[in-house]
């Protein structure tokens, strides 16, 4: 049942840290459970907190292969699961003119003519695999039905070939931005993890790790300002990726401490809406923007 990547919660946290992913206790615990129970992991949270990054980090520390299914509106079975290679099948039929129909038929629905798509690839894989189903909420409801069989039993049914069951469970991560409610049935099959904005201390470590060369005191100030912005009622509050961008900007500008002018000029890195900038400037007592 287990994917057998990790031995303990601490093991998860330590090994993820070596790839530069600092996991909160919640993330480490849930990743460990997903590994131990062999269940898919549904990760929700605001954009830019490292949902996709988590799957990549797990791939990196375990030396597994990453199979990624990027969902979008209109993604379907033939993009997600498998497809028959029609062109090749036609060629095969034309090439074998002398054969009887029965011979041809058994032949053209064989391995050779099957085009595996991400889900089938991950199920059939013999080596350790991480299956990333990205932005699941963008896919249509029908695709969710498809995922139920794949994620519930880790098997895929191809009518012509029979049911293919995973010999080795892939470590599965689904991400969602909650632009649509995923169905209860899908949620039931997954472990649920919400990655929110990190605690101040953790975010400071993340910034220091991702932006080497940044003064520790400045990193602390950066995180505090971002924390204050998140407490405001804004259209789009800055995420971790914006914090890192801002820290990089400050480093590039050569600012060694925050002051009113620097904050005012770089607020656009953190906030992406005009009205948010105006509001934040007012609350932070910046003069006219």
């Amino acid at each position: 049942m287990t994917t057998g990547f990790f031995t303990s919660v601490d093991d998860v946290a330590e090994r993820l840290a070596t790839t530069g992913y600092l996991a909160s206790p919640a993330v480490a615990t849930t990743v460990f459970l997903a590994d131990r129970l062999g269940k898919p992991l549904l990760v929700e949270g605001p954009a830019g907190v490292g949902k996709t990054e988590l799957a990549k980090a797990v791939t990196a520390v375990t030396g597994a292969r990453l199979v990624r299914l990027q969902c979008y509106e209109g993604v379907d079975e033939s993009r997600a699961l498998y497809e028959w290679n029609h062109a090749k099948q036609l060629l095969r039929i034309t090439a074998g003119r002398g054969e009887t129909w029965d011979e041809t038929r058994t032949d053209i629905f064989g391995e050779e003519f099957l085009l595996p798509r991400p889900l089938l690839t991950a199920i059939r894989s013999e080596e350790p695999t991480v299956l990333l189903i990205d932005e699941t909420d963008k896919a249509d409801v029908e695709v969710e039905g498809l995922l139920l069989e794949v994620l519930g039993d880790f098997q895929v049914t191809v009518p012509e070939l029979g049911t293919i069951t995973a010999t080795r469970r892939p470590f599965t991560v689904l991400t969602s931005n909650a632009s649509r409610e995923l169905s209860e049935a899908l949620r039931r099959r997954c472990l649920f993890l919400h990655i929110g904005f990190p605690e101040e201390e953790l975010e400071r470590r993340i910034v220091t790790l991702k932006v080497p060369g940044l003064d520790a005191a400045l990193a602390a100030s950066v995180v505090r300002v971002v924390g204050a912005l998140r407490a405001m009622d804004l259209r789009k509050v800055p995420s971790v990726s914006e914090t890192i961008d801002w820290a990089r900007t400050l480093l590039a500008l050569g600012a060694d401490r925050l002051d009113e002018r620097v904050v005012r000029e770089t607020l656009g890195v953190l906030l992406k809406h005009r009205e948010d900038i105006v509001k934040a400037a007012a609350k932070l007592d910046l003069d006219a923007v």
Partner: protein
Amino acid sequence: MSRADGAGPVGTAGAAGSPADAAGTSGAVARITGLVAALRAHGFGIGTGETVDAGLALEAVGFADRERVREALAATLLHGEGQRTVFDQVFDLYFPLGAAPESAEAYENTATDLAALRDRLAEALTAGDGAALDRLAAEAVGGFGGYGSGPESDGWSSYQTLSRLRPETLLARVRDRLRAAATAEDPEFTERLLDDEIRRRIEAFRERVRTEARRRVAERQGRDRVARRAVAGTADGVDFLLAGRAQLDELRRTVRPLARKLATRLAARRRRAARGEIDLRRTLRGSLSTGGVPVRPVLRRRRPRRPELVLLCDVSGSVAGFAQFTMLLVQALHDQFSRVRVFAFVNRVDEVTGLIARGAADPAGLGDRILAEAELTGWHGQSDYGTALGEFAERYAEAVGPRTVVFVLGDARTNGADPNLSALRLIADRARRVHWLNPEQPSLWGTGDSVAPAYADLVEMRPCRNARQLGALIGRLLPV
């Protein structure tokens, strides 16, 4: 409910009973099933399979670290972030922090002790020391939260604790200490954030006190009872008419995510509506080239025309929270419509579309601004549906046309005035559709001064008591 309860323990016992330390697990099984039952009582759909998973998860992470136990249970039992607040509160009851220091009981409610406790609290707030704050919360509730004397009437009150301790008054003291501790250079930019940060820390401490009081009450009265009654439900399930200020604030924060979900749902409906209708005439015309066999069906083309929306809201005291939430939601959805107009009334009608468009930046002050800037009341301040509907039909009839869908929001309590049914009938005749959303439960319609049944005869009236229902209704009723 009873069947689900019965299924839970059996499943978990089978799963979690397997590990070696059987003595410890039977207690754990009872805890998990108790927790699950309490969560179900709050409306969480948790199946037996998930309960089993929770047992397996606890077996995997062990009981050494309480936060890990919490995360393990959350990962297996929850299906969405909205459930987390309720879960955390229930979890604290079933897996409480280690026993509170019993010496706390010996505290005497003297002024010196209070002062000493406040001193230590200020220190812990300055340091931001979570463990110390937990300890202090336990001491505070033990020392100042107890009331009553008999075994039947006594209890623990977080309100009493907090009103004696008044942690919010420590702001200045904590600020001074933090300033003194800071390396004394010139004032840093982040100085100006200090007050808000301290306020957040104090609020977190208040929450700790509330948790502690709940835990103590649970010890006294039985956990299951407290878990069902003393834990507030999720924000989207709060009754509009009963919601407090804090809950309305929380609701307001859900407007934008909810609007995004509704927009996705509307887009999907629109896409579905755009295909499927066969244009018979053009299909037959096309079939002539294939000998009369309609090989290629021609679908009717839809004109991409977005509907118009008119919102007519009662904003008088009793239903103001409901109206404001809906106004903000509709405003957030405005790009889904060719035109949105919002009217507010108490006993006179005024258009507030502009106020709401500008109000998106400061939703908290919206209600006050509407009351201040729009002309909504005549001689008195009570809501009067008849007059308001009449005035709307008279002054703003041009806002309603055959493409308009009208939503009327209110409890239809006319304070005894004439309901003016003919005005509503006039609006209903002009509009493509009229929906009435009533924040009261249907059993109350028609009681007292409510004329809901009379209005319900003319237009469709639906109960809409919390944000969850509103989201579902809007997703279904909004025209595409």
